[in-house]
């Protein structure tokens, strides 16, 4: 693309103004739209964007594809729910306990996995997640007499509207909680990218040997990324349990969930900040629409089309949609600026003031 003289190339990690407008719209959306189903779709979009961001921190930045992220999500969900059911502990505190357990699990999983590269790493993450899934699915009573309930899953006590116990009768509080979570995750991803950790991780991603030669401790930084990612993932699990009021091993530890999370982050753009959000905005509604239209008549056909989409994206848009979407938003920005007779964005510095 030709660049006019004096134009500054916009940093693709800079947040366009038009995107902030979108964020604002998302904030006030529940006041405008009262359709429960649409609100639910947005909750799911935020949920997967959040989990996608969490996956991005460990896999997007390090370049090793983890297909066992559901393990971390599931541990958080199960720990919190078990504490809720058996000890009456409110999930607001339960989630902290869950996060701690998940982080420990993440370190235990991460340590052997990070010794491996490429497909071996992926296979090992799958093995861990499957191990957990099979164990929980087939165990009625676990160690210390904890009732895991096997494949029946855990039913969250129905308390109606109980904010102190992370339960709400309307979908709207869930909407805002997940929206905020998504913002936080995105912001943390942005911070990581900007600060030293992000640079170390990207260095490890491009060439681990060179990074090591420069003195970057591979294991330490990968584990740090894993810790942050695990903490987020566990919150996702807790939210899932509290939103659906039911959690079972097949879904929450399942390979399907892991693949969905990875796919959303990859389609959005691996290693980018806003990628997971874009990926979720694209895939979640499409998935819902497909299962709505086709799931009943031809079971499985919706997933078949999902598979086709996966292949198409990998073949034609391997970098994900992030760059294209950001470019679109930047163009909208420029259009708006010219519309309101403000200077074109390229000459403004980052804070929005003219030099």
């Amino acid at each position, binding site marked *: 693309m030709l660049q006019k003289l004096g134009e500054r190339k916009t940093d693709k990690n800079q947040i366009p103004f038009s995107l902030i407008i979108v964020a604002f719209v998302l904030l006030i959306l529940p006041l405008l739209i009262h359709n429960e189903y649409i609100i639910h779709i947005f909750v799911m979009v935020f949920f997967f964007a959040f989990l996608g961001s969490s996956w991005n921190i460990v896999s997007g930045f390090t*370049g090793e*594809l983890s297909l066992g992220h559901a393990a971390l999500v599931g541990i958080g969900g199960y720990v919190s729910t078990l504490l809720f059911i058996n000890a009456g502990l409110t999930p607001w505190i339960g989630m902290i306990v869950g996060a701690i357990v998940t982080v420990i699990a993440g370190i235990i999983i991460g340590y*052997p996995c990070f*010794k*491996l590269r*490429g*497909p*071996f790493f*992926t*296979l*090992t993450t*799958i*093995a*861990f997640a*499957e*191990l957990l899934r*099979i*164990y929980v*699915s*087939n165990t009625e009573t676990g160690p210390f007499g904890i009732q895991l309930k096997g494949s029946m899953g855990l039913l969250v006590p129905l308390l109606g509207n109980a904010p102190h116990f992370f339960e709400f009768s309307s979908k709207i509080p869930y909407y805002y909680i997940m929206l905020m979570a998504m913002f936080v995750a995105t912001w943390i991803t942005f911070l990581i990218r900007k600060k030293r950790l992000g640079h170390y991780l990207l260095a490890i991603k*491009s060439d681990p040997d060179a990074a090591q030669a420069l003195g970057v401790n591979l294991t330490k930084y990968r584990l740090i990324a894993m810790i942050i990612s695990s903490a987020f993932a566990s919150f996702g699990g807790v939210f899932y349990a509290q939103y659906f009021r039911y959690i079972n091993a097949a879904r929450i530890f399942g390979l399907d969930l892991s*693949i969905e999370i*990875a*796919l959303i982050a*990859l389609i959005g753009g*691996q290693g980018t900040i806003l990628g997971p959000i874009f990926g979720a905005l694209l895939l979640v509604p499409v998935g819902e629409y497909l299962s709505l239209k086709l799931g009943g008549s*031809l*079971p*499985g*056909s*919706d*997933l*078949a089309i*999902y*598979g*086709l*989409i*996966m*292949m198409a*994206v*990998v*073949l034609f848009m*391997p970098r994900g949609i992030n760059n294209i979407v950001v470019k679109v938003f930047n163009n909208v920005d420029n259009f708006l600026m010219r519309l309101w007779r403000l200077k074109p964005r390229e000459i403004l510095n980052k804070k929005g003031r003219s030099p």
Partner: protein
Amino acid sequence: MLVRLIPALIEGILLGGLYGIIAVGLNLIFGVLRVVNFAHGSMLMLSVFSYYFLWKIFGFDPFFSIIIVAPAMFVLGYFLQHILIRPLFVRERALVVEPTSVLMLTTGLMFFLDNLILAIFGPNYFSITTKISSSYFNLAGVAVPWPKIIAFFGGLFLIFLVTWLLNKTEIGKVIKATAQNRDAVAMCGIDVYKIYDLTFGMGVALVSIAGAFASQMFYVQPSIGTVFGVKSFLVIVLGGLGNILGSLIGGLVFGIVEALGSQVIASSASTMLSFLLFIIILFFRPQGLLMRRAERR
């Protein structure tokens, strides 16, 4: 206890042979192309369905159908690699693209194929019953179904055939060489991509032969692929990447561990054991049982 163990052991060995053949196909693909073919199980599933329909419509015995299905699947594999996966390789050479792309591609393929068959045929179970599949052989007081015995020895023969092919024929040596160092092979003037196409086709053909055996041992249903797909990865890691004999050994070990394990603990838990074994092996001996410490390509 011991009395229960013997039939389990026999079962494990025979099942292990089947795992071995399926793994050999995957090993070939993984070893040469370094592609994690998640769709491998789907290939098995497609071939199993083919055998079923050839039996249902024409009355062909699955063992006979091999001469129809195997070449067909070879062609399928050849074109899958040529059309879908080759562009990723070409791209990978030019840019720095994450190798995750092939993984995602084969995963998407798996989703597509598994659910396409599910959508067309529904989650119903079918089964093939031929004269051979319902007859038994008496081994030390245990009634062993004939198909399993044929599968085991057929598999052994197949594996030795493949090993001979790789070591004694020109094309086999080229394939082995490509597995070791694709750049060196390219420098010798060989079209590496064509070798990839060929190898992928071979791998799929192999698994389709395994499908002939599996179609008589298990129910014909869309999810038959998923179960074997994941396990075959565990097997090839166990045996050692790039080592054909290793796949057989790995398959046998795996089959025995699973069969014995399901006597001692619940059968689902024995699958857990396999995963645990997998993780332990990757941690302590990532080159598998039969390989020496691998050099990175």
